[in-house]
């Protein structure tokens, strides 16, 4: 299955992926309108330590701890993709405690949000991949 991977060697820590992600999931057609004066809640987040930078988003684990831990069944693994049914989420955040990557976070409405590989926003290839200026984030089969 194709997944989003980050290559630390090329990640510059510019955080543009975070903005492209937030924009792609904003339902707006203009980035300025979508993100101006807003605090963004991206599904991919850059971590940095010294000169090391890397973006982290859902790994779509084969044996996902978040799905195992989900108390409602809101998180499911469908054809390899870990999806969230926001309607069923009761904001208990057990998945946040479970995810070893820190890739799940509460959204503004309280339900959890996570990377769903831009499947739900019809972006084609994931926005973070498209927006990465150094091809550090790739979408491929490994």
């Amino acid at each position, binding site marked *: 299955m194709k997944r989003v991977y980050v290559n630390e*060697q*090329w990640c*510059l*820590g*510019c*955080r*543009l992926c*975070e*903005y*492209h992600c937030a*924009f792609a999931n904003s339902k707006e057609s203009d*980035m*300025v309108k979508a*993100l*101006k*004066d*807003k605090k963004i809640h991206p599904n991919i987040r850059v971590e940095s330590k010294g*000169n090391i930078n890397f973006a982290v988003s859902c790994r779509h684990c084969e044996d996902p701890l978040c799905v195992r831990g989900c108390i409602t069944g809101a998180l499911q693994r469908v054809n390899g993709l870990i999806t969230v049914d926001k309607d069923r989420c009761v904001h208990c955040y057990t998945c946040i405690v479970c995810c070893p990557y820190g890739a799940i976070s509460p959204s503004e409405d309280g339900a959890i949000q996570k990377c769903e590989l831009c499947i739900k926003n019809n972006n084609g290839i994931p926005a973070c991949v498209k*927006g990465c*200026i*150094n*091809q*550090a984030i790739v979408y491929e089969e490994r």
Partner: protein
Amino acid sequence: MNYIYPEYEVVRNYARCITCRACENQCSNMVHCYVECESRMESKDDNCVNCHRCVTICPTRALKIVKSTHTFRENANWTGKTINEIYKQAQSGGVLLSSMGNPENYPIYFDKILINASQVTNPSIDPLREPMETRVFLGCKSHKITRDGGGKIIPKTTPQLDLSVPIMFSAMSYGSISYNAHESLAKASEQLGIYYNTGEGGLHEDFYKYSKNTIVQVASGRFGVHKDYLNTAAAIEIKMGQGAKPGIGGHLPGTKIVGAVSRTRMIPEGSDAISPAPHHDIYSIEDLRQLVYSLKEATDYKKPVIVKIAAVHNITSIASGIARSGADIIAIDGFRGGTGAAPTKIRDNVGIPIELALASVDKRLRDEGIRDSVSLVVGGSIRSSSDVVKAIALGADCVYIGSAALIAMGCHLCRSCQSGKCNWGIATQAPELVKRLNPAIAHQRLVNLVIAWEHEIKEMMGGMGINSIESLKGNRLMLRGIGLNEKELSILGIYHAGE
């Protein structure tokens, strides 16, 4: 007190700025900063070198850089540039340094030359339907053909460089440009079937795998030269001069001689790498011949040897001498040629245009009947496929591209290489900047550029009814000058348009 007003202003469209801070994150000159209490970005114009990194990556196109309208009182003699140079030197007491090629307003002869096309009597060729040969061989060509009893040609040539297109990446050292820039050039050369040149920085051990496409340089400092270095290469280039700084040497400050750069150059970390102005063992053509043959001897006569010189006033005699020194290829670097750092006044005032140097050298070698003894490679500066076509028609076998290659990789010609803070990861050794140049991207851009030029070269050749580089070479009838005087036309050996 700082006398110098910033040359450029950063213009931010606050209506479009989403304060993603990518500009701040990516500017090594610390131009941008985020003002926490006002939740807005601010810019420090003083630091801006106009490299466009921020402009290019800004996801909402909220930035542009404009030339400051701040001005001195008008003066045709004392321009703002001249005044500022004096301010700088009065403050620092130092030599003015610059990077990349001579930017001054001298004639660009390529832009005053027009290319011919066939009509009616000599049909043009469609390169999409008919074969079009762009392959060239560089090296000494045999003066006569020998055949065996059956009439078959007996191939008897000295070593040659075999190129798919008459374009090579010119010498840029590891040190002046980054590891990733080198890897990009090497990868692209391999993919394209052409060559890149190490410059005087040695060859990093990681790049020996690209040696079939590598020309190694031996320059006055002899940095990085050893037996394996010479033997692994496809060809060896003796660097006598550089178009951007003819007559002077090079100086890579000790601060840049760290880690792999020091290892590759074979000098201690932190020591300045000073390339002397002359080769201290070369004071004559005879001396040069000794070095040429030393290198050939060291490599078992398997590698062609190139001698690279800057285009200077008496270039024709020098080239004639080199052709007799045993060199297989002469590379001539015009006064527009690039550099990682050179004294500004030398870069901008020394040397001659490549077009004139090329035309006169080609003519001189023909006149002396030794044109076939060497191939001619020209650079400094070839900017487009039409420049390539014109150079070949003026007599070149091949061109070197340096600045164009850097631009393809992302260079925005801000001409601040000497600062070592290249925001594009090219002319820098700072690891956090070097990683900005991903060879996976950069090498593809180089490949794309050369392939695009190749298409255009074929189109132009086809238009002229010519189907091989060989037939275009020195074919000055395919060129016409425009707006050139008699003297210029006569040096270039071309007619004026309309003639």
